[in-house]
């Protein structure tokens, strides 16, 4: 008699809790087992989404953070290497200022007449 024949003559090694079959109840509520499976997956998906969300948030913030702040020293250094001196800056500032204060010749003439300012007065002042 081989091993398989010997085993077959033995009793069933698998047991069930006492009264399992007598008290077995089937609950025909379709949501119960499906929900159980879904809940398991929902938890995994929820956790993964959270980690992903905070991960993306962290990396985006990290990359948006300026790595170099502008200091007086860095400006000075930049001007030095670009060969820009103080006069160039004033000139550029004045040019910008002139642009904003530009008035038409007609308006200047009106202003001088209204305030009774002669051209000679201006020359004296200059």
């Amino acid at each position, binding site marked *: 008699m*081989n*091993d*398989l024949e*010997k*085993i*077959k003559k*033995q009793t*069933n*090694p*698998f*047991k*069930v*809790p006492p009264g399992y*079959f007598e008290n*077995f109840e*089937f*609950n*025909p509520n*379709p949501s*119960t*087992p*499906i929900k159980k499976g879904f809940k398991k997956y929902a938890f995994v998906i929820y956790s993964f989404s959270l980690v992903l969300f905070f991960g993306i948030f962290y990396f985006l913030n990290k990359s948006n953070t300026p790595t170099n702040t502008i200091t007086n020293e860095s400006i000075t250094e930049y001007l030095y290497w670009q060969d820009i001196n103080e006069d160039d800056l004033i000139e550029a500032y004045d040019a910008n200022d002139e642009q904003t204060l530009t008035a038409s010749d007609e308006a200047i003439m009106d202003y001088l007449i209204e305030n009774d300012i002669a051209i000679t007065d201006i020359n004296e002042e200059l």
Partner: protein
Amino acid sequence: MSEYSDDELINLFKTGNNPNYAFNLIVKKYQERLYWHIRRLVLIHEDADDVLQNTLLKAWLGLEKFQSNAQLYTWLYRIATNESLNHLNKQKRKSLFSFQSLEKQLSNQLKADSYFEGDEIQYKLQQALLKLPEKQRIVFNMKYFEEMKYEEMADILETSVGALKASYHIATKKIEEFLKSN
């Protein structure tokens, strides 16, 4: 309960006023056979209980459309087999994240299971069965433990008698070799 034939139970479910009652009669009639069929595949009682519940749920949902030219018993067995295979596949996917194969995990679980009271040789037989491909394991269980006819098995597993005979023969050889070498 046993005075009802399968056809009568199906009629009672489809045309009666209380399908719950009719279905519970079906459950009472087949629960034990289905349970043992599932248990021998998934091995652990708690898993077998879950799979049995899922099997019955599928049957409950599908019984309305069940064609009475097929046998109720064959149909229920087919659902139970598919549900057991689904359960094992899920476990396999889970085992990918651990460092143990499913075969090893189930073998360890079985050893620690308080609802398994087999001796050394019975434990070895289960180990040998775990080494078989799932289809061969199903065929072996149905023939060896449940003593089913090949024709019945062919209906349930939707395959030919010849293929089943070949599967059973190969499975038996593999198990005998395992038992000899261990």
